[in-house]
């Protein structure tokens, strides 16, 4: 008799588009239960830009993978079931801004990663 399957990895990709249609954020949440007893959450953050709405989006201009602080695991679990308005605003606002600033060398990569992770804390 077949037994219940056990999830060892799960990925959810949310696509967020800015109202002007020129920027897109893919906010991916990855749950990793491959290390046995511990669960690790990672945020895959990607920012895309285009000059005109009729142009296709090319490759991501910024890609950040942020391993979520274990203390935020419960919030990550909740966010995987849908981002709130505050989280969406943060992902498209400060997170995207800092990701771009880090890419341009204006701020440290760790600061940008922290801002991306802060998305989970938003209500």
């Amino acid at each position, binding site marked *: 008799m077949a037994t219940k*399957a*056990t999830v060892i*990895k799960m990925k959810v990709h*949310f696509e967020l588009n800015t*109202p002007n249609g020129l920027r897109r954020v893919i906010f991916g949440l990855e749950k990793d239960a491959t290390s046995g007893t511990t669960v690790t959450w990672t945020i895959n953050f990607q920012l895309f830009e285009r000059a005109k709405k009729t142009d296709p989006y090319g490759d991501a*201009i910024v890609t950040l993978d942020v391993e979520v602080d274990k203390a935020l695991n419960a919030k990550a679990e909740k966010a995987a079931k849908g981002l709130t*308005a505050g989280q*969406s605003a943060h992902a498209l606002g400060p997170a995207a*801004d800092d990701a771009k600033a880090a890419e341009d060398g204006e701020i440290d990569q760790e600061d940008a990663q922290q801002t991306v992770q802060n998305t989970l804390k*938003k209500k």
Partner: protein
Amino acid sequence: MRSKFPLRLWAAARVVLLLSCVAAVCLAQTEKPKVIEQDQVAGSCEGIDLEKAGFTVRNIRMDDPFDFLPWVKARQKRAAAQITALIKDKPFTYSDAADKALEIIENENFLPDTSDARVKFRLEFVTVANCMNGNVDLIYRIYSTQIRPVLSARPEERVKERETPQDPAGQTTVVAASPFHFTPIASYDSTNLLSGGGRFEFRPRKFWKLPLKSASIQGEASPRMHNVVAALEGAYDSEVEAGGGWLAHAEWMLDFAHYSLPTGAGDIRGGHLTANFSGVTKPLFNGNVSLRFGGSVEGGNRQTELGSLILAPDTVPNAGFGMVKLYGAMDSRFRSHIFSASYGLELGSVGAAARVDWHKHILDARHQFWYSLGNHHLLDVESRFTLGRLRVPGTVPLPERFFGGRNEEFLIANDDWQIRANPVIRAIPGNRFFQTDEGAGGRDFFSYNLTAAYGVWRATLVPEELTTDDDFKSELEGAITTVTSTLQNYYSSKDPHYNNVVSQLPAMQTALNDLKTAVAATETSHGDQFADQFKACTRAVNGALRRINSAITPQGADPFGLISSVLSDDPDEIQLLKVNQACEVDLNGALHDANITALTSRVETLRKAMTAEFGQIDAERAQKRATADLAFTRRTLNTLFNDVNIYSISPVFVFDVAKIGPFGGTRYGPGAGIRFELATTAHFTLGYAWNVKRGPGEGRGNIFFAIGVRDLFH
């Protein structure tokens, strides 16, 4: 015989070994409580570190609800072949089984690119099962979909969900795939006999520089009839997360049609050129209703091979004509219901004249209800009520009068908006229901058609393991919640109070720049004194300034989120509140510099004004509007996930009532049949309806038969 020393050594070794084993077990229990399958259901993989326990990959499987589509299947096969080569019959490693395998799946891009606005999301699961005899099976589940947000309220779309679920799920608008599409069609009744044909469509990514999306030609013919339509179509979709205007979708079409249809007593024929436009509003009234509207101009000719047909008064057998049509509809979609009512007005003239020789009014109302009795055994009930009235102040070509029967005629040539314009009764062959007191063709009619089907045998589109998985269901729902949240922010950004905040950004920018300059000048004059306080103040000012600058001239971010964050009191944020604390309280508390006090006070006054204004944004209203906009999308997703079958065989019960006037009589047509639907590949209905109150020259009943086959170029 062993010596004493070796015996002692042996005993010591045993103790060390025993202690090592105990330590190893303890360590293993600390890090990984289970490395082999013990104390659990046989075959369960729960809590086992498969890599450390030395499992081997026995088998892999990929689950995608849309793998019945050849192009999805092809991608799945490619991915499966690569994953098989990577891990099958090899020692299990989490890196290969999860990370690398998912990378292969993502590279195959299971969600095709689309050219229109959709709500998109993707879920991927890697699961392990059947951990027995040192072997494990791997299952990869992918669920990706992209739904057009508003159009799903139309009853025409509901039929597509059932017959071709890949269309509403956004699995077909594949930009990179062939732009050519061909769909065979066939049907039978005793007037038209067996007819066959097809629809050929050319749908390139860009139609040169023309505002068009496709060119198509559709034809159907039998030894007794033909019907050909060639069309050029264009469309516009508003961005999903851009909210804003009331128009969700618009389309325009130029088409040429030619037909010849037998009536049993003579033939009616026509050819015409039509230009039409139609639009769909965003959902209104809390997301429960959307409106459609449109208009067309048409010119051509109508001809009749009279045979034994008797001409009614004010009716001509052959004529050129011009027509203007105006039409509107109201659609509403709930969890298990769709209601739609369309009204159409046709104003026509014989010849190219600016007068009204006839006017036609059509009301076409539809109700669809579906409910799963048991798991995916769908009871599907469709009712349709159509009313038509023709008034002739001048003359009218005979084919413009009402001819009824099994066939459907539509007021406009648009697959996505079908306003039925003739009395339909499946018990009478096509166009044979037309005899009235004043001659051939009705001036008034009504018809009511009930079709009920129950899926006795079926296979669910989404695997039952997923439809019963609560986590999966909530994550699926979460994707729509996320889009709703983004849309809510958009509507908040359209609030007048938000505009008032935005208008104060330049003043805040100036105030922060002035403060920055003043702090820098004061720092120079103080040497190393209060270095930490100066640093904290400068950092706070620079952070706030960076956010304000980005909000004024966005670099990579959306201003709403930036403003929301900089005005917040969240200590994790770069916020204006920190400027006052770092510069006025902490730094100037020691310096007592009047200029810095004045400048921080300016920043603080502006911050308070902006925060107060931002707080007045009606978030509840924005949330309601966003929820309303996505209501149809949420309901479509529910239908795709919970109701749609990959195949189903259903007994069908039909009951029709139709009346044609003046004094053409009322007919009743109960019937039964069978429907077979194989999602995307074919749908087939065969049945018989009895004409229980037949008129002169009419048969006892009619076999109705229709078949649709999938797009052969995919």
